[in-house]
């Protein structure tokens, strides 16, 4: 499988990333350790925009930059378009929640990243997930308004191309 991903960062990191590539983050992230990218899918979601927003709003980098990469590997978990992977993931979640309750914890305190952190021991190159990043407007909503496709890359050698795509200097 080959994918394009967008990575948001600060302008001051451009040279380091261009020279040394990416650094794998620690386990304390929602999909486990790795390098995080957003993906575009036709008109469904905009990877560049999500990466830029991540850098600007979440990380609060006024001087943001977005890289575009090509990722290639056959050792992946795809929870976006692979139905079999999603089916097994649902069984994992069911089993993990059961264990959570058996351990005396409340179901509402279950942490889904317990599954992704556990996946860190697998020999996989990336995890691809669909995230509903919608803002809560204070009422119950059943429609997805802000889909994000996120890719957590576990091994840097599957990034076969890395280019600076855009930055606040160019806007």
């Amino acid at each position, binding site marked *: 499988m080959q994918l394009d991903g967008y990575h948001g960062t600060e302008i001051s990191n451009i040279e380091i990333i261009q020279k040394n590539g990416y650094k794998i983050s620690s386990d304390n992230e929602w999909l486990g350790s790795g390098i995080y990218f957003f993906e575009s899918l036709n008109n469904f979601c905009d990877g560049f925009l999500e990466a830029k927003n991540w850098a600007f709003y979440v990380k609060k980098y006024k001087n943001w930059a977005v890289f575009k990469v090509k990722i290639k590997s056959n050792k992946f978990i795809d929870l976006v378009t692979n139905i079999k992977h999603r089916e097994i993931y649902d069984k994992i979640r069911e089993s993990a929640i059961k264990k959570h309750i058996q351990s005396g914890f409340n179901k509402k305190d279950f*942490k889904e990243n317990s599954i992704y952190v556990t996946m860190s021991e697998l020999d996989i190159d990336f995890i691809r997930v669909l995230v509903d990043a919608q803002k809560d407007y204070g009422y119950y909503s059943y429609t997805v308004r802000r889909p994000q496709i*996120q890719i957590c890359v576990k091994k840097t050698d599957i990034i076969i191309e890395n280019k600076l795509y855009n930055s606040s200097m160019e806007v």
Partner: protein
Amino acid sequence: MDYGAKELNKILNKFETMSIDEYKSLYEELNSLESYCPFYIITDNFNNQITFSNNARLIEGNFFDEIDDKNIIIQNNDQYVISDNPLAA
């Protein structure tokens, strides 16, 4: 069965055979981490406040642009309350 499915089955087997003590240890480890969350999980408590019921440390989006960081109050270590909720106006 493809490669990813086989790997996922290893995780399924791990959770199915995990002891209660092992699970508690994993859960405590996760609780000790600062977790970043890329999306909003908000519960409006109808008290001119918004509570982030997730353990997110930073919350993304335009919404954060509208409020001053000083209004963010840490509650019970894993909940963040924003006073003077601009959405309640």
